[in-house]
C-alpha cells in the first residue's frame, strides 16, 4: 500500500503491522480514561468474596474480646493503595471487637509513621486510647533479630515505643512482656517479611497468624495457607475490598474495584489486538514464502 505525501511516495505499513505498533501515548490515554471514568461515575459492581478472605475475617472474628493482637505494618509507602485499605479494615475489625493492638514495623522507610497515623485515626473512630488499647512500638533494624528477640523479652528490643515512652510506663505493654501474652499476629505486608514471620515466629512459637499482602505476593502466600502456617489471606486491593464488605464498611478499596475491572478488560483487549496483529502478520509472510 502506498500514499503520496509532499510529492513523495510513502509506503504505508499493512494494517496488521500497524495493529502491533499503536503509539504508546494512545495506550496511556486509554489507561488513564479507564481509571478516571469509574472513579467519577461508579458502577457499583458486587465483589465476590474468596475463601481465603473469609478465613481471614473468621480468624480475627473468633478472637475473644481483650485479646492482644500483634500488628506488623510491614509495608512501604509505594504500595499504600493496596495495603492501607487492608490495614484500615483490619484495625476497624480489631477495635470493634475490643482487641488490644500492639503495632510495630520492620520497614524503616515510613512503616512506623504510617502505623502511627492509622492507629491514631482508626483508634479515634472507636474512642480507643493510646497506651491502654493500642501502642506503636515503632521500628528497629534487622527484622530477624527483632522477630526472635521479641520472643524472649520485647523490652530488650524495644526499650521505648515510637514516641519515646519507656515500655514499663505503658499500661498495655506491662501486660505483654513477650509472645506468651500475644494471642494472634495480623500481618500487613508488601515484601518478604510475611515469609519471615511465618518461618521464624509461627514455626518456632506456634503463634496463629493471618496476612494481608499485595497482589504480587498473594500466589506465593497460598502455599502457606495450604500448609496451615497462615489461617487467612487477603490479596491486593481486591482482598481489601472483600474484607471491607465482610466488616460492613465499604471504603476506598471497594470503590477502586470498578476501575480495576475496566483496566483488566482493556489490557486483555491490548493482548488480543497485539496477538491478532502478530498472527495475521505471520500468515501474510507465510503466503509470501518468507517464513
Amino acid at each position, binding site marked *: 500500500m502506498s500514499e503520496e505525501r509532499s510529492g513523495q511516495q510513502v509506503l504505508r505499513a499493512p494494517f496488521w503491522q500497524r495493529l502491533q505498533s499503536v503509539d504508546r*501515548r494512545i495506550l*496511556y490515554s486509554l*489507561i*488513564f480514561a479507564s*481509571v*478516571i471514568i469509574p*472513579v*467519577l461515575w*461508579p458502577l457499583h459492581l458486587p465483589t465476590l468474596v474468596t475463601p481465603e478472605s473469609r478465613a481471614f475475617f473468621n480468624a480475627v472474628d473468633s478472637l475473644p474480646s481483650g485479646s492482644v493482637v500483634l500488628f506488623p505494618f510491614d509495608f512501604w509507602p*509505594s*504500595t*499504600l*493503595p*493496596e495495603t492501607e485499605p487492608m490495614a484500615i479494615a483490619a484495625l476497624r475489625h480489631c477495635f470493634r471487637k475490643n482487641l488490644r493492638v500492639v503495632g510495630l514495623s520492620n520497614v*524503616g*522507610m*515510613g512503616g*512506623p509513621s504510617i502505623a502511627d497515623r492509622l492507629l491514631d485515626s482508626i483508634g479515634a473512630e472507636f474512642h480507643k486510647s493510646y497506651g491502654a488499647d493500642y501502642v506503636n512500638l*515503632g*521500628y*528497629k*533494624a*534487622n527484622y*530477624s*533479630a527483632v522477630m*526472635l528477640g521479641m520472643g524472649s523479652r520485647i523490652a530488650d528490643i524495644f*526499650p*521505648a515505643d*515510637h514516641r*519515646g515512652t519507656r515500655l514499663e510506663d505503658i499500661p498495655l505493654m506491662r501486660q505483654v512482656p513477650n509472645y506468651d501474652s500475644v494471642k494472634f499476629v495480623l500481618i500487613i505486608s508488601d515484601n518478604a517479611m510475611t*515469609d*519471615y514471620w*511465618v*518461618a*521464624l515466629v*509461627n*514455626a*518456632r512459637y506456634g503463634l496463629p497468624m493471618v496476612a494481608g499482602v*499485595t*497482589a*504480587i505476593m*498473594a*500466589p506465593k502466600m497460598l*502455599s502457606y495457607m*495450604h*500448609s*496451615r*502456617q497462615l489461617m487467612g489471606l487477603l*490479596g*491486593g*486491593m*481486591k482482598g481489601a475490598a472483600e474484607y471491607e464488605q465482610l466488616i460492613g464498611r465499604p471504603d*476506598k478499596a471497594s*470503590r*477502586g474495584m470498578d*476501575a*480495576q475491572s475496566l*483496566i*483488566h478488560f482493556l*489490557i486483555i483487549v491490548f493482548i488480543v489486538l497485539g496477538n491478532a496483529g502478530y498472527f495475521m502478520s505471520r500468515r501474510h509472510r507465510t503466503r509470501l514464502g518468507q517464513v
Partner: protein
Amino acid sequence: MIDWTSHPFFALLPTAFFTLAIFSFLYKDNPMFKLAEHVFAGLSAGYYFGLIYHSVIRQQVWVPLTQDGHWSVIIPGALGLLMFARFFPRIGWTTRLPLAFVIGSTAGIMFIQQLHGMVLPQVGRTVLPLDSVRNILIIAGVLTTLIYFYFSKPHAGPLGWVASAGIGFIMIAFGAHFGYTVMARVSLLIGRVQFLLVDWLGLAR
C-alpha cells in the same frame, strides 16, 4: 476571613504538585520530574537519619548508657561506629567486623529458619493421600517443578519428560502470577487517581 490552608485543594496542593511532577515522566524526562526525584531522595535520606537517631542512637544506646547504667551497649555502639571506618583508608578494613557479625548471625538464623520454618512444613503438607485429582495434581506440580529447576543433569529421557510436564505447570503458574501482577500495578494507579480526583479536586465522593 477564609482559612485557605484548611481547604483540601490548597492543603493538598504540594502533594498534588509532586504527584503530577512524577506523572509528567510518562510524556518525557523533564526538569520538574528531576526536581521531584531529588526532593524524594533527600527526604528519604533525611527520614532514615531522623528515625535511626531516635530509634537506635537515643533509645538503644544513649539512654541505656547514661540513665540505666547498661555499659554493655558500648560494644554494639562501637561496632556500629566502625561501619563508618570505610571513609578512612588506613582503618577501612575494620568495617568488616560489624558486617561479619550481622551477616554471620543472620546466616545462622536463616539456616534454621529456612529448614525448620519453610522446607519441613511445605514438604510435610505435600505428602498428601492420593485419593483425589486435586491432591495428585498438587504432588505432581511440586515434584515436576523441583525437577525442572534441577540443572545438574541434562533434561533428557525420563528426566526430560518430567521436566516438560513441569513446564506446563510452571506456565500456568506464571500466567496466574502475571494476572496478579497486573492487578497489583493497576491498584497503585487507581490509588493515585482517587487521590487527585476525590481527595484533592473533590470531583467525586
